């Protein structure tokens, strides 16, 4: 049975400063309307692409979305930031209304758009359970019945009569999720909760979602955590620029997502006159290519990464090294490698270098690359700063844990139990 049916759903947002001029626009719009003309502001239509700054004042965050979810399904929704996931969830949870289209919901909806909505820091844990439960649509009686269960699920029994402003952020989130998890709606909307909390708590959350689904209820799950989507969802949707670009089995949709992602950032090349550099050297190009056994162009922890560098050297008989730094997104240097020693001698002209970062070395996350050309292993001629950025995605099997491994590297080190 179809529990959610979304037909031709579109959502338009007004960009920029709302306020100045909006009264004039409203009057104008009304003037057009009473003369039976089309809305003068609606003709400005753009797709939801934040990489290019729009010229118009309106943007379509969602455009002609159609899908249906059956009872008991766990539907994963993935996509980059700004792809329209949040807009879709906001409309489904009635926080805002669509511009066009129609949604039919068969059953009570509860959403965890961000846990802890309506928590008041001055109130105690107990008071907040009641308040939050009521905001999420429970009656006082229902909450009272589930109170003990909620408290023990959250694991903050000891502090239940302490104002939540004294809670650690972990406790806060646990309590908030515990309330929401006991809603028992027919349709549960979950957004990014797995990003917070410790491992134990993540397990609890995932367990709860599985319970909800196996009890015949329906879950919409929005996440950046591909592993969790793969493991929990029976089906997935990929949103890009406000439209559905892929739909089907989670592994298939995730693959499409990874393939489409950030390809543009995987390299750059320059004409000589505009290339970064100085009188000694200039960068012609740098390119990143993942190497995988299955040949798919995606960067995961199981992809080797080949970096090809082409540069112009203007120094005669240069005794040259390249020194490459790989940084984590937070700015720490993960490693520094240099080309062969003793260094070769280069003539004036174009030269090429190649670096291969082996698979199963880097952990998931965003990394960037800088490199410099060094003369006589001592004198830097130019530092090409942040010339490449990429993100390593998760690819994992046989684990029930879906969190992020800590650390910048995740090397394949021999480690076994004798069994």
């Amino acid at each position, binding site marked *: 049975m179809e529990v959610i049916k979304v037909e031709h759903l579109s959502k338009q*947002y*007004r960009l920029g400063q*709302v*306020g100045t001029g*909006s*009264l004039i626009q*409203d009057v104008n719009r009304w003037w057009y309307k009473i003369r039976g003309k089309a809305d003068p502001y609606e003709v400005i239509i753009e797709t939801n692409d934040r990489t290019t700054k729009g010229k118009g004042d309106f943007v379509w965050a969602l455009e002609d979305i159609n899908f249906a979810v059956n009872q008991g399904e766990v539907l994963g929704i993935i996509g980059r930031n700004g792809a329209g996931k949040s807009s879709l969830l*906001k*409309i*489904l*949870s*009635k*926080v*805002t*209304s*669509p*511009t*066009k*289209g*129609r*949604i*039919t*919901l*068969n*059953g*009570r*909806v509860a*959403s965890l*758009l*961000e846990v802890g*909505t*309506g928590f*008041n820091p*001055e*109130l105690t844990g107990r*008071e907040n359970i*009641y*308040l939050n439960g*009521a*905001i*999420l*649509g429970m*009656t*006082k009686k*229902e909450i009272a019945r589930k109170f003990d269960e909620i408290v023990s699920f959250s694991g903050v029994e000891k502090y239940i009569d302490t*104002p939540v402003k004294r809670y650690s952020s972990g406790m806060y989130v646990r309590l908030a999720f515990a309330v929401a998890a006991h809603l*028992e*709606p*027919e349709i549960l909307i979950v957004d990014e909760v797995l990003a917070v909390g410790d491992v134990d708590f993540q397990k609890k959350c995932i367990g709860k979602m599985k319970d909800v689904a196996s009890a015949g209820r329906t879950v919409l799950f929005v996440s950046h955590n591909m592993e969790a989507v793969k493991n929990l969802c029976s089906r997935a949707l990929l949103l890009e620029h406000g439209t559905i670009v892929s739909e089907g089995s989670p592994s298939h949709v995730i693959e499409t997502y990874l393939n489409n992602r950030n390809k543009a950032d995987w390299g750059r090349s320059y004409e000589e006159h505009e290339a970064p550099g100085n009188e000694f050297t200039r960068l012609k190009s740098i390119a990143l290519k993942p190497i995988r056994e299955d040949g798919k162009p995606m960067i995961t922890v199981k992809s080797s990464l080949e970096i090809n560098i082409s540069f112009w050297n203007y120094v005669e008989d240069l005794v040259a090294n390249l020194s490459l730094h790989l940084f984590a997104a937070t700015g720490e240097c993960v490693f520094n490698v240099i080309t062969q020693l003793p260094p070769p001698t280069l003539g004036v002209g174009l030269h090429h270098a190649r670096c291969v970062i082996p698979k199963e070395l880097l952990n998931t996350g965003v990394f960037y690359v800088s490199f410099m050309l060094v003369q006589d292993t001592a004198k830097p001629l130019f530092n090409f700063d942040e010339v490449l950025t990429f993100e390593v995605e998760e690819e994992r099997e046989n684990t029930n844990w879906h969190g992020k491994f800590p650390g910048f590297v995740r090397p394949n080190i021999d480690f076994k139990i004798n069994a």
Partner: protein
Amino acid sequence: MESLRKVEVITPKRGMFDVRLHELWGYRDLILLFVRRDFVAQYKQTILGPLWFIIQPVLTSFMFYVVFGMIASIPTQGVHQFLFYFTGLTIWGYFSECFTKTSGTFIANSNLFGKVYFPRLTVPISIVISGLFKLLIQLVILSILIGMFSMSGTQQISMDWTIVLFPFYVMLMGFLGLGLGILFSALTTKYRDLSFLLTFGVQLLMYATPVIYPLSFTSGRIRDALAYNPLTSILENVRYSIYGIGQFDVYGLLYTAGFTLVVLVLGILVFNRIEQSFMDTV
């Protein structure tokens, strides 16, 4: 699950009159919890707590006593000036609190409204109810003051049977404040200037209402104009009921009731319209 499985359809705009007031009933527990939250959160970590409900009007009445009573010597129809101001301020305070606080509904709660759906009217309704507690405490103080003044012989009290209408007066003020407040809250989501207008507008309105002077003090065009103020009859009638001054104005009361009804209905309709789309404009 206690609630019945129901089919719901989400479409771009609901009808003008599709206000779904019945939904509010399902959320009655939430309204009461909001009331409790307002009360608890407001006075936690204050030393005097709800005593502020009393200190505020007492000090203001005293100031008015000095400024309008002693310096300007505006007559108060034989009622002790302090008592006159305290009565007026208590009544006026409930209306102005309902009005100003509910007018911030959307702006103050945009964070919450942006994440979860519940009938938005629960918030202003809970504000109007919270205000009742404050009013109740102040009325207790007023009774004590009246008792003190009449026992010491400084004030003759002649309570009239019309005092039984007092809950009705309170209801009218609550609804009028609510209606105006939600009307403004809906409009301020789009035109922020209104919130500036409101703060000093309410201040001005107090002087355009016989709060610190009796209607009988005015005459001619001003008096005619005051008759259009729906709050005039309430203040005058309250003072008539307690102190027996002025006169009981039935037509004024009917006018106020009609005015309130119109404002409330209009407010609910506009509020209902805005609540569906305001997240995109805030």
